[in-house]
């Protein structure tokens, strides 16, 4: 437990002291919440605007979670490998999974902090949410799935891409591109049919649609993401990504040969 705590404390402090990480994870989504809330709601009926803003805030919260998992996590892994810390860690009596849990926990902390700030800013600029206890609990479950899937992608990128800048940019690239083609940045109904299919299969956009459905209302989503089949697919693929990342990291991430 002490080893996990040590790895966690170090990773959290590093993340909170890294200006680029804070910008992309917290400031950037907040900027888009502000832009989106004031630019994309003009023609909507007055009664719907707060929920559109709520939907935008949720999308940007999901984007913040993606950046935390897909970019900050691989940056932390690749950075430690590049600066020789990995050699040092391998020589020490610490199990890779303890370092892994510490890192993941730090990313979850930053993710939740970013998510909370994005939602608070969204609320301040007029976002309103529906749903009560059960819906909120379910939405938190989907937030957890987004974190799992993003961390899985981040672990894969951090393990396979040895270069620090490469790992960061790959993570940002995957987050931005998949967000753009899966309906996070543009309405689902505006996507071509193949991308609509992708949006339903991609666990992060599917989880985002589920959260919007639960907290901003079903009218804000062009399809029902809460069918049992869709939920099962989202859960399965989120855990599959996390599992793939974990296996890859534990097998290859701690090897220098």
């Amino acid at each position: 437990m002490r080893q996990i705590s040590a790895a966690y404390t170090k990773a959290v402090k590093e993340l909170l002291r890294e200006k680029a990480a804070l910008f992309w994870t917290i400031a950037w989504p907040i900027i888009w919440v502000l832009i989106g809330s004031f630019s994309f709601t003009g023609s909507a009926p007055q009664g719907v605007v707060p929920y559109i803003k709520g939907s935008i805030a949720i999308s940007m919260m999901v984007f913040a979670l993606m950046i935390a998992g897909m970019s900050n996590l691989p940056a932390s892994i690749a950075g430690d490998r590049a600066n020789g810390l990995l050699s040092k860690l391998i020589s020490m009596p610490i199990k890779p999974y303890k370092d892994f849990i510490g890192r993941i926990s730090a990313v979850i902390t930053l993710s939740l902090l970013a998510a909370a700030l994005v939602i608070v800013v969204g609320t301040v600029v007029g976002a309103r949410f529906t749903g009560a206890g059960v819906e909120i609990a379910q939405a938190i479950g989907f937030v957890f799935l987004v974190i799992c899937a993003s961390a899985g992608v981040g672990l894969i990128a951090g393990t396979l891409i040895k270069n620090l800048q490469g790992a960061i940019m790959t993570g940002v690239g995957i987050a931005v591109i998949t967000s753009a083609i899966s309906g996070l940045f543009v309405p689902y109904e505006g996507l071509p049919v193949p991308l609509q299919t992708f949006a339903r299969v991609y666990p992060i956009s599917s989880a985002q649609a589920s959260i919007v459905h639960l907290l901003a209302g079903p009218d804000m989503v062009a399809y029902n993401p809460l069918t049992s089949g869709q939920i099962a697919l989202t859960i399965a693929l989120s855990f599959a990504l996390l599992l793939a990342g974990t296996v890859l990291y534990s097998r290859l991430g701690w090897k220098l040969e």
Partner: protein
Amino acid sequence: MFAIHVENLVKTYDSRRVLDGVNLDVPEGEFYALMGPNGSGKTTLASIIAAVKTQDSGIVEVYGNKPAQAKESIGYVPQENFSSPKLSGKENLIYFAGLLGYSRSQANQLAAGMLNKLGLSEEADKRVDKYSGGMRKRLEVATAIFPGIKVLILDEPTTGLDPAARRSFFSMIQEIMDRKTSIILITHIGSDAELASRVGLIDNGKMIAEGTPDELKRKHAVEDVITVETAVKTDSVLSVLRGYSINEKVAESETGYKIYSRNGDRVLADVVRSLDQAGHKVMRIEMARPTLEDVFFRLTERHLQEATG
């Protein structure tokens, strides 16, 4: 039982043998320097002893155990700066103490004590990216000497340090030796290796010589070394110098030449006279007892710095 025992160690990368039957024994409390150029296999050897890499064949033991089973007693300082630049010196030490299983309060106490010993108390809360190279390296060595560490492996720790930082670094090493910790110093700097009680010279994956610095010099480089700098470096200068060096061996450096002689005092004057007669102006000439770098040159016909690149 030796602190470190290495027997017939072989390691291959892409069909190239980087370690080719290396043998090494380091008794408890010994300061052992492993000296060789880049690519000679010394870092690979260090990382195998430190349990970071594994060998293809051969035996490696740390106090009778395989390195992977002896991690509690190994302190390894890789060549790269591994301390986190975003954390303070104290936070870095607390992190590594935590990884070794110390509680938060124990780690705090240990870190404070170590920073005090290192003379870094005043910088304890400063972020490491504000440290000088020497301070950072001392901090990193501190992460490898927590209680219970019996073997300290230092990979090129003085690279990039100024003379003052190097002196300060080695006075710290002296303190560590007083605790009976065995030290392996990986280096390509002869003056660093001179400080060790024993030195192993490694080249192309093979141990080519081993002994105390004095033994090595007595055995492999009995000659005086005369360094000559002329106004210009030409073939004509080289040809004059060859006539005075044993086996006509002349080592060329950036600024001049080195020749080897058993009668340095007499040859010194003759060299000046001959160069003068040949029309070459001598800018500097001096004689010195051989160094470990000279020993390496005598054994490999290559200059250590050149081989290091």
